[in-house]
């Protein structure tokens, strides 16, 4: 009876996971979808605690279980609530790492369990105690979970600047070797006896640990969101291994669901930047390629012209409609609040102000939405790319704040450009374009931007925050 109820609870959980994920992929229902999945998760957790039976025996150690749940809940809630909006991907990466570690620990515990049962007869070959299938689920959970754990921690470190990009020649070969070592250790462990199995098992974990580090290390910090999404789907697969291990449908379906959806999501993310996954992983333009691109940039583009603060203030104060294009530079300079300030000052002067949001502006999808929401910019003012591209036609001044690739016309005109095909904000349709950045250096993709050299465009050099502050002051005096 109770076991049957447990089955039903797991069924409900699986369905809520699917529904939740489906709703998460639509802006209108996303939040509700998240809550639905969370509800299903709660059902699955409490059903497991109270209804699970193993050979007719209930679970024990309730104090430990609830203790762990309590600690995890408090720590999880606090850190999730405290984190700054722009540090979200780091946080997700960290939580993902926890999940991976959890999966790895489960495998370790299961392994230890088998060991405990037979430790008095150390000469039994391990292969006699577990079928190949059983062993593969244990070991795959351990390996994938560990890789996901260390990879996520490195990704987290890169995002908050503690870990620097690091790559060396032949890195890919070293990575392959470590991966082969993981497999060798796995085979070795399976052929060991109970008495001698500890060493190979620890080696499996160790090599997987190293592989996770090496895998993420060379990838450009700016590509971390993609890597996190990939590691996310790894953890899904590790969870599914746990599902096989305990013949638990909720774990199995939840894990596979995230594994599949996460893989596709990773690919979609790459596509939104018009890159391939291999390109991201091998890092051809976050890293190595930069030099080539820079040489390409030296073909002199003619001259650019600068604009003084006073002139910029004047032009904007007397415009009818100003569109602001925020980019990565705005995020780095933490200039979202002063940007909102500028918007208000201009509106007081009767200028219509809106924001043109490119989906991959910044370093994570939706970065700009989150950033501007944090500064209390009204959602009605944010135009999505398609709408913005219509709106530019009737715009007097476009103010570009630390954006570069997302307004690069090469994506439309130059089939040889690495970003060719990426949809961009077509700012040239407006009457005047003012670009704020610190120098003429290229952005994320490492390529030159023709836009800066067009007659319509004038440059306003400086850190985004400082420039905006001065601009605000200046406009007030107009």
């Amino acid at each position, binding site marked *: 009876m109770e076991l049957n109820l447990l089955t039903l609870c797991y069924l409900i959980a699986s369905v809520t996971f699917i529904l*939740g*994920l*489906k709703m*998460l*992929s639509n*802006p209108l229902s*996303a*939040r509700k979808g*998240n*809550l639905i999945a969370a509800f299903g998760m709660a059902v699955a957790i409490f059903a497991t605690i109270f209804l699970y039976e193993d050979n007719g025996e*209930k*679970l*024990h*150690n309730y104090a430990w279980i609830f203790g*762990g*749940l309590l600690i*995890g809940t408090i720590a*999880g*809630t606090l850190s999730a*609530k405290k984190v700054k*909006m722009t540090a*979200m991907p780091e946080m*997700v990466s960290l939580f993902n790492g*926890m*999940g991976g*570690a*959890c*999966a790895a*620990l*489960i495998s*370790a*515990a299961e392994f230890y*369990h088998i060991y405990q049962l037979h430790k008095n007869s150390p000469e039994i070959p391990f292969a006699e105690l577990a079928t190949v*299938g059983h062993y593969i689920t244990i070991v795959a959970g351990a390996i994938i979970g560990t890789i996901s754990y260390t990879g996520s921690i490195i990704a987290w470190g890169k995002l908050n600047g503690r870990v620097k990009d690091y790559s060396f020649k032949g890195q890919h070969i070293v990575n392959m070797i470590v991966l082969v070592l993981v497999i060798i250790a796995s085979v070795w462990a399976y052929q060991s006896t109970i008495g001698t199995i500890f060493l190979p098992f620890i080696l499996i974990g160790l090599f997987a640990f190293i592989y996770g580090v090496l895998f993420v290390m060379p990838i450009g910090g700016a590509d971390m*969101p993609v890597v996190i*999404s990939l590691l996310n789907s790894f953890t899904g697969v590790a*969870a599914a291994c*746990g*599902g096989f291990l*305990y013949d638990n449908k*909720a*774990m*199995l379906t*939840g894990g596979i669901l*995230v*594994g*599949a959806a996460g893989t*596709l*999501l990773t690919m*979609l993310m790459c596509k*939104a930047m018009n890159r391939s996954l291999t390109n991201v992983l091998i890092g051809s333009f976050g890293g190595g390629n930069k030099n080539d691109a820079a040489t390409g940039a030296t073909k002199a583009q003619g001259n650019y012209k600068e604009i003084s603060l006073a002139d910029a203030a004047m032009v904007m104060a007397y415009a009818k409609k100003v569109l602001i294009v925020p980019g990565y530079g705005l995020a780095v300079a933490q200039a979202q609040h002063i940007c909102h300030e500028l918007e208000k000052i201009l509106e007081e002067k009767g200028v219509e102000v809106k924001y043109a*949001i490119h*989906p991959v502006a910044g370093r994570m999808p*939706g970065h700009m*939405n*989150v950033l501007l*929401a944090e500064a209390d910019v009204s*959602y009605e003012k944010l135009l999505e790319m398609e*709408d913005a591209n*219509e709106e530019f036609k009737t715009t007097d001044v476009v103010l570009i704040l630390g954006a570069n690739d997302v307004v690069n016309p090469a994506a439309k005109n130059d089939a040889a450009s690495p970003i060719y095909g990426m949809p961009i904000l077509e700012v040239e349709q407006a009457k005047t374009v003012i670009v704020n950045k610190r120098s003429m250096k290229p952005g994320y993709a490492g390529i030159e931007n023709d836009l800066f050299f067009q007659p319509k465009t004038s440059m306003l050099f400086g850190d985004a925050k400082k420039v905006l502050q001065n601009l605000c002051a200046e406009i007030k005096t107009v």
Partner: protein
Amino acid sequence: MDNILSFISSNQQIIYIVILMIFVGIEVIGRVPSVLHTPLMSGANAIHGVVIIGAIIVMGKAETGNYFALALGFLAVILGTLNVVGGFVVTDRMLEMFKKKPQPPKGA
């Protein structure tokens, strides 16, 4: 070959479930707009926190005297809870920012 066939045959239903789940996972995500990529990743991250079930089982089965097993399980439960709770809360916070979806008149 024989082995594989008989494996497939005896695990037929599980194989169906896995394959169908993969289809569902892929199809369900297919139409997501790029602004939602980050929250979706985060939501999916919370869902694989279902691995916590395994942690609870490990913990609940550990013999009371076996401190190594208890410690392993305890750690697993904490980490799993972090993943689940943190994941859902962080996703909710992100989505809060997206709630007032603007509906600009098309093409305006």
